[in-house]
């Protein structure tokens, strides 16, 4: 089974800090995604990547950037954290071909104070 690992389950950061959320998958998938989840809003796509050094904006990219230097790792960066970025962040990896689908990490709950 594909494993998607998010390095932190809980993070507390101060307003204005630069924050890195890390995601690693172990199945050599090319496509990776970052979502944020808020109560009553479901999951919304922030950024995605088709391959190393490639990135595309999702529906809510403002205030975020990403980095994909290695195929297995997709990082979400909050350049200057703000309280409205307090949320649950979920990373996903997509398998193509015969068993097409998405595998999600366990999530990082970020609180910005």
């Amino acid at each position, binding site marked *: 089974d594909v494993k*998607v690992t998010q390095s932190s*389950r809980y993070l507390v950061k101060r307003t204005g800090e630069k924050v890195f959320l890390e995601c690693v998958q172990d199945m050599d998938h090319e*496509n990776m*995604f970052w*979502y944020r989840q808020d109560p*009553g*809003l*479901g*999951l*919304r*796509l922030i950024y*995605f990547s*088709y391959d190393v050094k490639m990135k*595309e*904006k*999702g*529906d809510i990219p403002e205030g975020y950037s990403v980095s994909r230097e290695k195929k297995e790792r997709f990082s979400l960066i909050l350049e200057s954290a703000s309280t409205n970025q307090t949320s649950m962040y*979920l990373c*996903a990896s*997509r398998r193509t071909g015969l068993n*097409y*689908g*998405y*595998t*999600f*990490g*366990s*999530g990082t*709950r970020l609180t910005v104070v």
Partner: protein
Amino acid sequence: AQSVTQLDSQVPVFEEAPVELRCNYSSSVSVYLFWYVQYPNQGLQLLLKYLSGSTLVKGINGFEAEFNKSQTSFHLRKPSVHISDTAEYFCAAEYSGGGADGLTFGKGTHLIIQP
């Protein structure tokens, strides 16, 4: 923009009763559909998916869903629920042909099982 609508934010059901969680998607030439379950403080677990073929899809934990193209629906059903089914359920769609890639999610349905 393409969207996914989950018509109920909360569904209370008695244990051992049947349940249906409703999901409608935007009409599209090509769409893949998914149902995920999320237990408290956990990530998303795939229940089932529709990519093509048979419109009745069976998943894990006794869940099934039916793809209905004419009604643009993909409702999730279980004939008899258990306390352990209490969770948040998300319907999601992947649309082809433009726009951002990835899954578009509904806002979720909280399934509450009452003893």
